[in-house]
């Protein structure tokens, strides 16, 4: 939705919620929506773990927000 308004967007989440994200994307007609996914969970983790998980998806996020 934000992309359609011209706002570069990256969807981040955990693999735990990947089926829900894919279901919602498909039902909204954007089945190819790129997802930047990390192992579950995102909440309740320490900062070093946050950074480690961010490293795993930084490329995917950059790609998602810079693609034409």
């Amino acid at each position: 939705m934000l992309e359609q308004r011209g706002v570069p967007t990256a969807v981040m989440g955990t693999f735990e919620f990947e089926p829900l994200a894919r279901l919602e994307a498909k039902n909204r007609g954007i089945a190819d929506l790129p997802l930047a996914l990390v192992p579950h969970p995102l909440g309740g983790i320490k900062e070093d773990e946050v950074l480690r998980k961010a490293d795993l998806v930084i490329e995917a996020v950059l790609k998602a927000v810079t693609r034409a």
Partner: protein
Amino acid sequence: MSALGPAAKVVEFAGAFEDIDADYQARGWTDGLPIVPPTEARVREFLKLTRRDPREIVGVLPPRQGEATIEKIAANAVMAGCKPEYLPVILAAIEALADPLFNLDSVQATTHPVAPLIVVNGPIARELEINGGYNCFGQGFRANVTIGRAVRLVLMNVGGGLPGSGDRATQGSPAKLAYCVAENEAESPWEPLHVEAGFPGETSVVTVFGCEGPHNIQDHFSNTGLGVLRTVAGAMGQAGSNNLLGWGWPLLALGPEHAATIARDGYSKAKVKEFLFEHARFPLARLGREYQQQQIERHGAMDAPSTMLSIVRRPEDISIIVAGGAGKHSCWQPTFGDGTHFTRRVIER
């Protein structure tokens, strides 16, 4: 004219009730309880209660983006065990849930145990015997239980809010089975919810809240309005609710005796809301450091030992109804926080 959706599919069954029910269970078309088979004849009985085209789309429901047509809603109402005359209430509730302000996308899919609470005001509540008195949030009243269940079945069967896929609730709540109540207007010392919103008293209105199950507030000891309100404020200003996390539009359902004591001591609804805005608060210092940090960084809470966190942005963001029978109990419904706003619709008759 409103958009039309596809006609509901007709499935042929040859077996007995047990076979039909087993098939519905196997297809995942139920909340777990047995269903009443929605035969074409039975659905037609329900459709007599509305002038709208059976294929008219009442709302598009996420996460499936399912088109909730009148006919499909009627079929789910039959399955839930409703009487035909309940249909207009269910239609209004579904329309209110599909209002973007309600944010059904998040309410359906979230890990939070949020359930749509259907509050019915006006004469239709009395006509259909939707209970607003004794045990109004509990068992024993067909209209409450089956209207609530019908809405849940529509959210599952049309909206795709299926546990584990489209509905990712961590624990869920019994309120997700059926959650429908009438306001006890006869015993309220104040104007009822719909009149407060500007409707004539004789108009029947549904208001839907995305909230937790009822959280009891017991006070047998206070004999002043101020005393009761302090207990209410203490219960509402609690850690762990989404309202403390991020405000929103919570609901307070005062029992008639508590409401009478509060009103007798000069409190209007507006004054109750002002009191609760000021006093239903939780001390920042009693939260863990990470949670404190969230409140400081995202909500601008002052990092000070004296900081008290409010559950709403403004007094008027709290809704109040009167519900229940005799006794010194009230309840509040923490909502899904900032992620949902209550919505309402007039019930067309």
